[in-house]
């Protein structure tokens, strides 16, 4: 069974985003970029399934600028077998990404497609569910445990009230939550090896998919700022404040 893992190059988890002064977006010039953390978890899960003998091949795919190659090389260094870059300078929305991925899946016929549940830049949380819809496949979103059993897969999902387990027929779409696993660091020898792994270069036109934006961003602004308040010296002062607020009797 092949596993397809879409990965996205995003602002690094530890960088505080700055809104551009002209209100057109977030300033990404000279900002550290990394693989979306949820996608790292997706790659890790796929590699573990390969190590267990469940999967035969792990294919990483990214849609984005030429530099998304770096993200794909990271996937290869972690243990993916090959990569596909669908290169575009356009910002592709989740719907467009899902349409492209559906075409990739038609070619690859993967048994599982594992995606991050959301990208930490646009925070949409849509692509996996949309891909499942377009391919008419089942979806196990926000997964904290994945167990492949023959031609089905059990997915434990993190939901509002706790955990829920669903059984899906394969092929299936899975989106990862934080507790699914802890992604490995690529070792230096594996980083070197990744350089010679195959990376196919494509464009959206190769797949005949219209990726034009459906949402127009009119402006991007900073949220209202909170300012630091007061520091109290001790518990008594805090209790007095709480009483004044009516929180404590």
């Amino acid at each position, binding site marked *: 069974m092949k596993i397809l893992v879409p990965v996205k190059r995003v602002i690094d988890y530890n960088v505080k*985003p700055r809104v551009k002064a002209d209100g057109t977006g*977030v300033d990404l010039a000279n900002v550290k970029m990394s693989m979306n953390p949820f996608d790292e978890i997706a790659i890790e899960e796929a590699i573990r399934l390969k190590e267990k003998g469940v999967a035969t091949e792990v294919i990483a795919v990214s849609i984005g600028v030429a530099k998304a190659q770096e993200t794909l090389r990271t996937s290869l260094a972690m243990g993916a077998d090959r990569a596909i870059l669908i290169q575009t300078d356009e910002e592709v929305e989740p719907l467009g990404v899902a349409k492209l991925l559906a075409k990739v899946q038609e070619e690859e016929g993967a048994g599982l497609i594992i995606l991050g549940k959301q990208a930490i830049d646009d925070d949409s949380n849509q692509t996996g569910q949309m891909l499942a819809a377009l391919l008419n496949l089942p979806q196990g979103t*926000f997964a904290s445990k994945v167990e492949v059993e023959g031609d089905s897969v059990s997915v434990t999902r993190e939901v509002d009230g706790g*955990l*829920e387990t669903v059984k899906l027929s394969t092929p299936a779409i899975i989106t990862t939550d934080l507790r699914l696993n802890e992604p490995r660091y690529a070792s230096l020898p594996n980083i070197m090896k990744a350089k010679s792994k195959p990376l196919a270069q494509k464009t959206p036109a190769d797949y005949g998919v219209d990726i034009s934006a459906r949402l127009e961003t009119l*402006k*991007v602004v900073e949220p209202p700022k909170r300012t630091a308040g007061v520091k109290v010296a001790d518990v008594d002062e805090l209790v007095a404040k709480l009483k004044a607020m009516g929180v404590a009797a």
Partner: protein
Amino acid sequence: MKTLVWVEHEGGAVKDATLSAVTAAAKLGEVHLLVVGEGVSAVADAAAKIAGVGKVHVADDAAFGHALAENVAPLIVELMGHHDAFIAPATSNGKNIAPRVAALLDVMQISDILSVESEDTFTRPIYAGNAIATVKSKDAKKVITVRGTAFEKAQRDGGSGTLEAVASTGDKGLSSFVGAEIAKLERPELTSAKIIVSGGRALKDGPTFEEVIFPLADKLGAAVGASRAAVDAGYVPNDYQVGQTGKIVAPEVYVAVGISGAIQHLAGMKDSKTIIAINKDEDAPIFQVADIGLVGDLFKVVPELTGKL
């Protein structure tokens, strides 16, 4: 515009998240509701009483018992033949189902909206809430999820919606429900609590977390939350997590205990009315957003606070 709002319910009751979604929908026009589940007549009756609602579509069938997206999305797509917008609260059900509906309708979803600017223009948080985008949808139909903390709750009574049964679109046979571990809450629910006490990694382990945080929460009648670090470390289950990818909360009072204040955590709670931070590190970023800060050892300070309340 005619909107169809997903009714989030549990144990026969309509959840608060639905009421915020109704308020958002009302800004677009006529509000119709969709109650999906198995044995949901009590929910449907309660939904019909929500102020301002018109029709309440009720899809009561075994295939809908656990709100599996594979079964529910085709039903919604059918109903969207005569609605202009589908609106769901950004709950785990809403987030699971809405994008599947959007893709089937060939619509780009607008996630987690904070405001309705006009029929086609909305604001939404991006980059963990460090930026707010105003977006205009070019799609003829809209699919939207709503951030509950950004909208007032519609009144639970005063409405007189009419119930209308919807024929089941059946079980698509793609997925099945196996089981759930849903925590029995002895305290208020995080997303609707007026007061929240949250703990971070500094709480050391599960038993210590319970020993320190729970009595304070109970004294205040508060819900209990946690940072990602505390959940990852296994102190408390996943449903306690407050943050960018966990629950988004905005209570009257948020008490952060031993939480440093990573941007991902702040994303989930910075709209709280009053933030109180207790941390031994006076340079912790949480103090930059806290209204009231207390620098001190939480193992001493929190029990003292609990005792004095």
